């Protein structure tokens, strides 16, 4: 055996790279994903005879910083019991010394893949609304996600939304229920950088304050920005795009079917200034409900004709009755005169 083809060589490398599960109750099935920090494998829990997902650290970690981050991620997820957050079952060290955690195995597709299906704008907004609800819950537990993007959101086989990958999530100071933070009181988080000084996160979905590395300014409104970028993607099937001058290209320039009201919601989320964005995920969720109910939204000041058009669209029956009544009145008046 001296002739080892490239294909076999890669197969052997991945075999050896596989987490050593000896002495654990888990049995390897297959690798299902690779991320920036680790790989995710589908494994069988031998005791409960069920499939679960095992995430294991695969990146260089001489300082132990990444292992620490992964354990922190596991602890963050453990605090989040919500239908839209994948529950975590176990965390520990494998016999080969690597940190791992076990989470529920979800059969579904990423939001990016799901978007390829042709859904109506209202259906997309209803989907987005569930994402916002999940993020609102995360914020209510004093946690910032900091890496919201289509590939970190899954849609399950029943259409349920699942927010994943809390690798960059951080806890922030708890705020009072229903309290809208001002810039002065909004909870903030320290940004982490890699050894090379690179800011952690995904540029296209990252708020300006996060991209600049200004950790003091990163708060839940930074996640609101990322949510706006996710909405941008849902509406246009594109990552947020900017002109050469650095101005965000409005979604309607890519898709004229988008109403000005939903575009305004998206643009408000993605305002450069934190103060101009929605101040909480709850307020964004409320505006989405208003949009879906065909009511005026906070993000957009309608012109008179737009108010009239929207009112007419919502009150077609009344308009028809009124029109019928006027026609009858006109006919009666006409015949009486004749």
């Amino acid at each position, binding site marked *: *055996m*001296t*002739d*080892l083809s490239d294909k*076999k*060589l890669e*197969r*052997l*490398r991945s*075999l*050896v*790279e*596989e987490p*050593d*599960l*000896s*002495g*654990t*109750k888990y*049995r*390897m099935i297959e690798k299902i994903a690779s991320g920036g920090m680790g790989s995710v494998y589908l494994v069988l829990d031998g005791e409960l005879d069920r499939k679960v997902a095992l995430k294991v*650290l*695969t*990146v*260089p*970690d*001489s300082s*132990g910083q990444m*292992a620490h981050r992964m354990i922190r991620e596991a602890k963050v997820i453990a605090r989040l019991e919500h239908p839209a957050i994948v529950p975590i079952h*176990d965390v*520990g*060290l*494998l*016999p*080969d*010394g*690597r*940190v791992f955690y076990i989470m529920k195995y979800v059969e579904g597709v990423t939001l990016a893949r799901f978007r390829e299906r042709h859904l109506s704008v209202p259906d997309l907004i209803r989907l987005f609304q569930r994402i916002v609800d999940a993020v609102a819950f995360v914020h209510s537990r004093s946690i910032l996600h900091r890496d919201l993007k289509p590939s970190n959101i899954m849609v399950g086989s029943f259409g349920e939304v699942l927010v994943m990958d809390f690798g960059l999530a951080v806890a922030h100071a708890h705020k009072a229920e229903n309290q809208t933070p001002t810039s002065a009181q909004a909870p903030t988080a320290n940004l982490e950088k890699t050894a090379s000084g690179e800011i952690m996160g995904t540029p296209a979905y990252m708020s300006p304050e996060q991209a600049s590395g200004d950790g003091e300014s990163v708060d839940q409104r930074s996640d609101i920005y990322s949510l706006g970028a996710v909405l941008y993607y849902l509406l246009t099937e594109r990552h947020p795009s900017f002109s050469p001058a650095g101005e965000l290209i409005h979604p309607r320039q890519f898709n004229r079917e988008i109403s000005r009201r939903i575009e305004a919601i998206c643009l408000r989320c993605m305002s450069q200034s934190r103060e101009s964005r929605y101040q909480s995920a709850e307020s964004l969720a409320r505006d989405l409900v208003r949009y879906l109910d065909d009511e005026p939204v906070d993000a957009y000041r309608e012109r008179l004709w737009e108010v009239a058009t929207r009112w007419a669209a919502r009150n077609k029956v009344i308009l028809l009755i009124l029109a019928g009544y006027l026609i009858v009145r006109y006919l009666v008046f006409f015949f009486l005169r004749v």
Partner: protein
Amino acid sequence: MTSEPNSHFPTTRFSAVKGLRNADAETRRRSWNALIAVYWRPSYKYTRIRWKLDPEQAQDAIQSFFLTAFEKQYLADFDPSIARFRTYLRICLDRFILKERQSSDRLKRGGDIEHLSLDFASADSELNRLTASATERPDRLFDQEWVRSILVLSIHKFKATCVEQEKEINFALFERYDLGDDASLTYAQLGEQFALSIETVTNYLAWARRQFRQTVLETIAELTATEEEYREEVLAVLGIKLT
């Protein structure tokens, strides 16, 4: 469910790189043989591509290089704080060939040099199958071939271990399933072929993979001088960082 970190990694190990400097001649020879076993093939392919030598010239260059390096012990000067051993060896090889070229304008067929027993024909055969893109970067080719050499050597060692422990069937399963060409082969089919239950196949393969992994780690340990270099090379070969 947790255990001692790194308990599956080699704790005491023989380093062939360190062994080059050993006062004992037998240890030096043993170290040298261990290094040649891994390095001759990547060095030969690299020489053919990087220096565009024909097979005969490249064979002589490799024979001369390894024999001269052993006699003059210039690989023993390796300083792990400056580079990895494989990088150092490649640079030494480059310098050697350059010097040979300058001194004689071309590498001649060596008449009086002692010849190592190396299977150049199979290396040439593998080289002929390489794609054009694989040969664009000779240094990358060297590294890739180095990984291949380590894995091939590890397979041989693993096979020997299985024979020694009377676990030939474990190796046979590993060879059929993990080294075979049939990607559609299932554990059930394997079980039928070897008259084993699926559970037994699963357990035997799990043992084989664990043992093979350990063998690869030991092989890398042999080829490195320091713990840091060992960890770097494990990352390069296996893509994992020892914590």
